[in-house]
Structures are given as C-alpha cells and as structure tokens.
C-alpha cells in the first residue's frame, strides 16, 4: 500500500523525499526500471521496424526479436544500477569534499523519488514514437531535462553548500556515470553480437 502512495505523491506536489527505507526505494526502483525498459524496447521496435522495412531481407528484424529478452534484462539491470551508482558517487563527493554526514540511504531515496515523473514522461514518449521520430526525440530530451532538474532540486535541499558547488558536483557525477555505463554496455553488447555472428557463420 505504501508503495502506491509513494508512486502517487509527486503528482500531489511533494518535490523531494529523503525518508524512504532502502527496501522501499529498491522496490520502487525495480518497478520504474521494468516500466522504462518495456517502453524503450517497444519504441525501439516500432522505430527500427519503420526504419529497417526497406532492408528487411537482411534478417535484422528477426535478430532483434531474438535478442529482445536479453535486452530487457540488460536494460532493467542498467536502470537500477544507474541510480545506485549515481547516489554512490554523490555520496562520496559530499562526504569527501563538503564534509557532510548524510547516509547513503537518503541519497538513494532522493534519486529514486526524482525518477518517478520522468518515467511517466517516458511512457508519453512511447506513444509519440508511433507518430514521428522528431517528436520522440524531443520527448526524450524533455525527460532528461526534467530528471536532472528534479535531482538538483532534491539534492540542493540536502547538501548545505554554495549553489555553484552543488551544480558542478551534480554535473561531474552525471558525466562520470555516463562514461561508466556507456563503456560497460558497449563491451556487453559487442560480446553479445559477436557470439551471435559467430553462431551464424
């Protein structure tokens, strides 16, 4: 029951919440990650099938179909780990640089809570992907902007330092996070595709 209340409360005007328990935030994370992974996979499928229909004889569509389940698992693990790693980095920064004593649990709860509205925007993006690619990319851009702003709003209420420092540390954290995840996913996907081609040849 409490999970439903947590999922509803951002739409009732509560901007940030640092009171979630670790278990609750993990469950909320799992729900959000499943929803957004489904949205990503469905929209990619419609976009790619539009794009590829001209060169369907290559059999790319069937390869995508076969890799669907693996991509789903990979995306869910990604979306959960992104939030955990992000809050870990910001935890380290705030403890080392700002000398604040705030527990890891609160950061995870803030980052999880800030992720609820962007996930809803992502579902809207899924609907937009049926119409046009331009609209879809604009919605994805809006989602990222809203995610960054909500995270900033939540963290700046907790980290008591100059606003400029908070802005710089959030930006550095996002960049480090992006580099880590792009590198990891690149190696995983490349090894997946390589093994598939080896079985074909």
């Amino acid at each position, binding site marked *: 029951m409490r999970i439903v209340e947590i999922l509803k409360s951002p739409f009732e005007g509560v901007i940030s919440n640092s009171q979630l328990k670790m278990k609750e935030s993990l469950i909320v994370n799992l729900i959000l990650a499943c929803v957004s992974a489904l949205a990503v996979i469905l929209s990619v499928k419609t976009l790619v099938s539009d794009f590829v229909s001209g060169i369907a004889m290559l059999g790319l569509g069937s390869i995508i179909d076969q890799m669907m389940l693996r991509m789903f698992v990979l995306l869910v693990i990604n979306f959960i780990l992104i939030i955990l790693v992000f809050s870990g980095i910001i935890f380290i920064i705030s403890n080392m640089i700002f000398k604040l004593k705030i527990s890891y649990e609160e950061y995870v709860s803030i980052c999880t809570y800030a992720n609820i509205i962007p996930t809803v925007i992502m579902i809207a993006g899924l609907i937009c992907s049926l119409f046009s690619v331009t609209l879809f990319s*604009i919605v994805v851009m*809006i989602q990222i*902007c*809203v995610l960054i*702003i909500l995270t900033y709003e939540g963290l700046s209420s907790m980290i008591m330092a100059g606003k*400029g420092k908070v802005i*710089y540390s959030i*930006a550095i954290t*996002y*960049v480090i996070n992006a580099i880590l995840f792009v590198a990891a996913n690149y190696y995983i996907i490349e090894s997946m595709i390589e093994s598939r081609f080896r079985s074909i040849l």
Partner: protein
Amino acid sequence: MNNCFYCGKELTEEGDFCGNCGLIKFYDQEGAGKRLLKQFKYLFTNPVAFIRTSKLVNPIFTGATAIIIILIQLIIIKGMGRKLHLNFEALDTILAILGITVVEAAFMWIIVNGIFKKKVNFMSFLNLTLSIQLISIIINIIGAILGVAITPYLYTIVSTFGAIVSLLLMYQGIKDFVQADLFVYLITIVGSFSGTALVISIVLKSLMRNALRSIF
C-alpha cells in the same frame, strides 16, 4: 542601513551586491567599462550570482557578452577545429548560437509573460541566456584545449559537462527571476527547449529541401 533600493533587503557581499535580486549598486562616477568589469568579476567567483546580475537591463552588457561569445567560438572553430574533427563553418556556427539564444529567450518571455502573467523584461531573458552561453563556452574552450593536447574525446566529455551545468544554471536563473512554484519553472524550461528544437528542425528541413533541390 545599507539596503537594496530594488527589493529592500540588506546588501551583502562587499556592500555592492544584493544576494536576493542580483542588483549591483553602481556609483555615479563609474564609467561603462568599470561597471562591466564589476559585473564580470562575479563570473569566476560565483556563477549563480553572475546569473542573477543578468536581470539588470544593460545593453552594454548584452553587446559585450555577445562579442566575447563570438570571439571565443571563432578561436575554437578556426584555431582548433581541424584537430577536434569539427566540420563546421565558423559563420554558420556563430549564427546558429546567436539564433538559438534569441529564440530561446523569446520563448521564455512569451511563456512567462503570456501564460503565467509575470512582468519580466525581454532583455533580462536575453541577458540570462547570453550569460549562460558565456559560461558554457568558457567551459568549452577549456575542453578544446584539453582535447587538442590529449585526445578529442575529452572535448566531448567536457562539453557534455558544460551542457548539464548550463541547464542547471538556467533553472536556477528562472527560479530567481520568476519566483513561483516548481511547475512554472519546469513548464518554462521545457517549453522553451522544445519550442527551440521545433523551430530549428523546421529551419533545417527547409534548408535541406533547398539543398536537395539544388543537387537534383
């Protein structure tokens, strides 16, 4: 005793700068150049305060910021563009940056004044977007120097960092200018971004159509 004549709060930070509304107290004997220097001093010491000072309507500041942006962009494109694999013409890039700035400021002004009925001058939004571009382009030139010295990937990484910083600074600036609730800020930022993206895509499409027509 030393109060800001604009919002009435007590002046902080060396007695010349109001931390609440971002007003700088200029003295009558100071010329235009000295006022500019006073305003640009906050760019390095406190970027959020610098964003706040851009609420002042000051055409000299607008012109000076635009000229500095153009010069730094020219240095990046002409001096280091080949090593960073940037295939842009300098004139196109400068026109694009200035056009994006003006369109974004116009969208923000329309949304804030038309929909939410707050009285904020158009020039202050123009100054806001220009000063944010200035900060992000200073971060960019640091990234370009690193990219030439070490590897071009560093330029991409540092410019991503600059983009996130400029997004957060824009949020903070709108928060200071408009003073409403979170919904208003989000709608303003999202509306101006998506409006700008739509305008750019329409312009690009018409340009591409002309280019295709000239090819065939």
